[in-house]
């Protein structure tokens, strides 16, 4: 584990934070890093939420009140030290997925699961992408404005769907007042194609349900990549 200095612990919402660390090294968008508050602790794994070109490295996290690490992360201030385990992981886009110009890469996430897709988006995308993000309320729709702006600038290449399971005030471009799984079943599946590739990131429950929805319309398991937060 390597000691790193915290550059920023930005408040994103009541329980959400973006932690930016001073770190110089390479990673592939989609990879994760291990974090711990002391050198000997077992690291907890977080998707990187920034692009390799940005200064430092960011992770998105929410407070888990009885969690082992996040209550301690919440208290960290710029200048504090945290311990990092090098980027790892293979939840990354494959060039082969976009060789067919008629195919789309779907990014489906709930909660902080949007992080790896933000890293990929900021790093530059090739081919058509569709991001579907499930959140409870508009306040938990992390990176919403950034995603809406990108979708507006690149209508042909990138579309953004925000599904609010509890929010009632989120009407706007790409915002749906329904659960992610409900939207997927009622509208999303009409957009799915057999040649598309589906990347899922977030909680086990979401991933299992989305896989079953995709499977029910004939999407093969080889077309689905999943990163489960555990």
């Amino acid at each position, binding site marked *: 584990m390597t000691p790193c200095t915290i550059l920023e612990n930005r408040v994103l919402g009541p329980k959400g934070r973006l932690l930016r660390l001073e770190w110089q090294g390479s990673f592939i968008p989609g990879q994760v890093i291990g974090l711990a508050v002391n050198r000997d602790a077992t*690291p907890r794994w977080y998707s990187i939420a920034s692009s390799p070109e940005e200064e430092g490295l960011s992770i998105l996290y929410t407070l888990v009140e009885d969690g082992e690490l996040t209550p301690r992360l919440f208290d960290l201030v710029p200048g504090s030290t945290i311990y990092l385990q090098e980027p790892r992981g293979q*939840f990354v886009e494959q060039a082969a997925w976009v060789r067919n110009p008629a195919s789309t890469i779907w990014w489906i996430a709930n*909660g902080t699961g949007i992080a790896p897709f933000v890293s990929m988006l900021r790093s530059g995308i090739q081919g058509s992408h569709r991001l579907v993000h499930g959140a*409870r309320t508009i306040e938990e729709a992390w990176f919403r404005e950034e995603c809406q702006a990108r979708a507006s600038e690149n209508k042909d290449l990138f579309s953004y769907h925000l599904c609010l399971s509890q929010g009632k005030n989120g009407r706007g471009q790409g915002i749906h007042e329904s659960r992610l799984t409900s939207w997927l079943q009622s509208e999303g599946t009409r957009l799915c194609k057999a040649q598309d590739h589906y990347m899922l990131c977030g909680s*086990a429950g979401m991933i299992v349900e989305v896989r*079953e929805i995709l*499977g029910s319309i004939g999407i093969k398991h*080889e077309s689905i990549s999943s*990163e489960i937060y*555990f």
Partner: protein
Amino acid sequence: MNQSAVKSISEPRLFGKDLGAIESWVVAKGEPAFRAKQIYEWLYAKGVRSFSEMSNLSEKLRANLESEWILGRTEADSVSESADGTKKYLFAAGNKKYIESAYIPEPDRATLCVSTQAGCKMGCIFCATARQGFQGNLDAGQIVNQLYSLPERERISNIVYMGMGEPLDNQDGTFGSLRILMNPRGANMAARRITLSTIGLPGPLEAYLKEFDSHLAISIHSPFDDERKSLMPIQHVFPIKDTLGLLKGYSFSDHHRLSFEYIMFDKVNDSPSHARELARILSGLPCRINLIHYHSVPGNDLQGSPRADMEAFQTILKDKGYNTTIRRSRGEDIQAACGLLSTKALLRNTDQDTRDW
């Protein structure tokens, strides 16, 4: 739900506590430390069901135990019996969680398959437990309770940690239960009678190998990276080659066995090239390979390999020097066979309103 389980939600349970925790409590009560060993033996060696049975403790100590703890053993809520003699037990695990365990008798032995979590986070696409998501970890007491409550307990010769959940994702509960099972003052089971099965989480795996001599089974299910990713999301973060590299630093034998579990899916991972590649990547590891018939679960497009293909696969591995067995499927008619344990139907969607998907 039985009454002892209802009581267990709100009061601390003694069953499952380790010697250190019991000793801390005993000393805080002004009692000599050796009383802790006596309590430990009553709980785990003698398996008492009430504090009143702890006859070599003073009345005062028993009264203190009674007022501050519940003993915490629970009986199964229900049992299903298969035509082949396998039994599946359902346990309440507190706070609307349920788990299942399987008792698998043979003429010369009997195996108990225990669960370590209610549900599972790992999301393997072929597993029924994965379909229910994750409800929580079991503590050490809830894990060993699956043995202690078993009517057939005296027949149990082997315990396998192959039920619901990923054991190494619940290090506290799993390790706590192993310590009770293998403690000479506890259940006093030989390490060679216990097998832990895991998909391979490196940190906890290393900790397991350092502390315990019980057997280890690794769920591999494909020798190819990309294919394993599509079956088991964990492959994205902890590829099997990392696990294999770690294992090569340890020694294994008949008394401390390493095996690999390989569920066979028709036209997915059952080709001769899969067998050859499996043999190649396991080269250098003294291990057994268990080929497992796949029991279909809803929600995926996988089917089990035909028996003939499994045998051909086995032959290739045996020719390459691997002790390879085709596991006999047990309890399929009661959904107790490998990959079929699930308490999804019992979950009340009380958290529907709080989910973000």
